[in-house]
């Protein structure tokens, strides 16, 4: 794997960077960063089949998958205990199943980039009480799993993702200091164990909770190891938006500049911008999934630098229905709305269907609503990332970020005065 930084931007410290992740082996494409990895359930997007994925016209072929949520669902019979995955009986099965092409072959997506991490923000959440010195504990649909580094590595070697993160002990923001310290120790120890088993293409996990010292310490330790990049975990587990930039910086400042950085758990556009400003290259987010389930569609303007080209909203922003960033298509306002979700959007849903149709589908609880929404939301969010990359390339990232946040603030304010 090759990663190279192509451009940097960002006012005072110039930390935001645009780079290129280049492929090897079966993955011959390149991914421009900052990039969004699409969250998957069991390897595929929640609602879209791969042939439909061309419908959001993305050149991104990068998906994120939780190693655990994929495996436990495949190897375990529905009624069986989750530990069947981790017994010797379970193992041969996995080996046979994935022998040839691993995840890519099983999912029929040979040209995609897959990145695997232990945690999945929807299905496999880390459980700090369960984690002990032997392994990390996760709450999954099949129950609580305790994952040891060796087992984790076996799963990884079966899945054969393009990139993977080492096993980490993530703690939420409110963990006590002692626990936090322990998590850092364990994570580093497991990192060493994982590297010993398979030293290729790994992302060293960096944790540290809400403590600046722990974050820096962990980052420094991991930086000493020979890894291909860094996966920064422990976010999205309860820290506030105010403290995050400092924590991110504490980590990033101690990592070498030329290596890839990937953060899990940041979802909202503002959070992404924060991450980019701190120098992160890869993100995964459950934002799209939650929006889609809620019947919401993204409509925020992608190009905020040029204020004159704001996308017109049919209705004045009212907080319940339209806060300027997303619209709630279940609302009766859209019953007769013949316009597409977003004027000018080139995705399949906007080119072919109207808001009224999706409103109807949501009302009668048809699955097609989620399919169409996921297509649009994914397309839109990937477009957002494109704007970010463009802004970095032009050297105007700070301005982009500033005007984006301001325009959101304006809309919030005006929506509050309306309601």
């Amino acid at each position, binding site marked *: 794997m090759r990663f190279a930084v192509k451009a940097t931007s960002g006012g005072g410290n110039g930390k935001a960077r645009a780079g290129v992740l280049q492929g090897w082996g079966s993955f011959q494409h390149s991914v421009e960063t900052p990039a969004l990895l699409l969250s998957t359930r069991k390897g595929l997007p929640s609602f879209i089949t791969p042939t439909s994925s061309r419908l959001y016209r993305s050149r991104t072929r990068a998906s994120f998958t939780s190693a655990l949520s994929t495996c436990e669902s495949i190897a375990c019979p529905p009624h069986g205990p989750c530990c069947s995955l981790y017994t010797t009986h379970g193992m041969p099965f996995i080996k046979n199943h994935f022998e040839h092409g691993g995840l890519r072959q099983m999912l029929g997506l040979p040209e995609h980039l897959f990145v695997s991490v232990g945690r999945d923000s929807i299905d496999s959440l880390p459980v700090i009480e369960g984690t002990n010195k032997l392994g990390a504990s996760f709450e999954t649909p099949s129950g609580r799993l305790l994952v040891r580094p060796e087992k984790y590595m076996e799963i990884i070697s079966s899945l054969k993702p393009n990139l993977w993160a080492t096993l980490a002990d993530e703690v939420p923001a409110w963990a006590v200091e002692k626990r936090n310290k322990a998590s850092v120790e364990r994570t580093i120890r497991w990192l060493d164990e994982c590297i010993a088993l398979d030293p290729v293409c790994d992302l060293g996990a960096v944790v540290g909770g809400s403590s600046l010292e722990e974050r820096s310490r962990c980052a420094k330790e991991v930086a000493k190891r020979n890894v291909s990049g860094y996966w920064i975990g422990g976010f999205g587990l309860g820290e506030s938006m105010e403290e995050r930039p400092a924590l991110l910086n504490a980590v990033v400042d101690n990592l070498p500049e030329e290596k890839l950085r990937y953060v899990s758990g940041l979802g909202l556009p503002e959070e992404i911008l924060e991450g980019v400003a701190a120098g992160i290259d890869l993100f995964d987010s459950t934002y799209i999934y939650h929006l889609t389930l809620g019947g919401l569609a993204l409509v925020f303007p992608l190009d905020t630098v040029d204020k004159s080209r704001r996308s017109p909203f049919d209705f004045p922003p009212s907080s319940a229905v339209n806060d300027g960033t997303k619209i709630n298509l279940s609302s009766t306002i859209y*019953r007769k709305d013949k316009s597409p979700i977003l004027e000018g959007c080139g995705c399949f849903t906007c080119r072919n269907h109207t808001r009224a149709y999706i409103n109807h589908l949501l009302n009668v609880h048809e699955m097609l609503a989620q399919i169409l929404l996921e297509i649009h939301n994914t397309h839109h969010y990937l477009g957002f990332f494109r704007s970010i990359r463009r802004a970095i390339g032009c050297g105007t990232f700070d301005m982009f970020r500033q005007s984006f946040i301001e325009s959101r603030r304006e809309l919030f304010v005006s929506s509050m005065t309306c309601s």
Partner: protein
Amino acid sequence: MALRFEVIGRFNRARAAQLTLPHYIVKHHCTIKGLTYSQLEDIGCQIILGNTYHLALRPTAELIDDMGGLHKFMNWDRALLTDSGGFQMVSLLHLADITEKGVTFQSPADGQPMLLTPEESIQIQNKIGADIIMALDDVVKTTITGPRVEEAMYRTLRWIDRCIAAHQRPHEQNLFGIVQGGLDPVLRDICVKGLVERDLPGELTSKGANLFDSHLWQLRYWWSFGGEDKDSFWRVVAQCTAALPEDKPRYVMGVGYPLDIVVCSALGADMYDCVYPTRTARFGTALIPEGVLKLKHKVMANDERPIDPTCSCMVCKTYTRAYLHCLVTKDALGSQLLSYHNLAYMMRLSKELHLSIVEGRFPDFVREFLKAQFPRGDVPEWVCNAMEVAGIDISSCCAHLSAPVYKASAIPIADGEAPTFGKEIGANSSGAVPLLVIISTEDFLQAIHFFN
């Protein structure tokens, strides 16, 4: 839009024709469950059926009209067909009552008594804007006998007149009537003549009670769940297809199991619709030539093969049974992928039926089909009976029928003469009743189980 129907091949009663693909797909709420219209086009779907009853409830016909019609609303530019709404009402609602004025029922929204008249049914369908619309008919259960059947038949004729009068868009939408008369050939004939007189653009025969005279003959089958009587089912179909003019397509509503489709095609029906493929997909069942495959079952967890090695749909080319096993019933994508496969399978079945008739190898196709579905030769009795009437020799598929005593011969169909029900059995082998070996109850029950 004039529907042309041209028979281009036949074997006994079965026909292959140029009209549309001999299959419909039922759509429910302006969408096939979980598939985009581009996926449907990929599979080869030509015409979709819309449920007037459901559409009138949500999103209401007025809204669809405001949106420019159902074609524009769901962005489907191929053909659309709507039912009159009467059937759903009578079969779904408990307190539906049929009077001369129309169908009175309790509105599911607020419990208020409502009335669906023929005029209103047509008006709703005018607003929805499908290419083919149905007249409201007096729906009675297939197997009912007695004065009710006669009443229904005459009332249907009276209602047809009202429907014709109320139809606002006769040049854009083809109105189809339904022929009533139950199993009584005399009543049926009266109905047929009555409808022909009215010179409707389209004709439908509904299985059992309703028979439409239109460009299509539509058979509406009142599906009684949990033990429908397959024996009377095929007899009704045979009877109706025998009675209806040759030059018009026959549409059997509500028939969806692949076996039923093959049998009905052998008996002379041309078009079908059913919720079965997509509904069964949502329960994790895939359709294959051998019958069904229950992907929920734990043996599927280790099965690396595609659902159907002979199928060329996207799902079978990309995914294994094992992967689908972990998706079905738990993830939306599972039911989507299975629906896609099941619909592709149905399209393929229709195409193969069509081609086999055109190429003159229909009986071989039927035999192959039955052998795949019943490898042990335990073809159900009703299928054997039906095939005999259809004039197809399936003795090689039936273990119990390979005794040399059995003789199946083609039934002579006199031109223009409709063999009545009583005559059909007797017409075989010069008046003598053919010898049919009764298969054991266990075998029969097993066959039923296969489809549940």
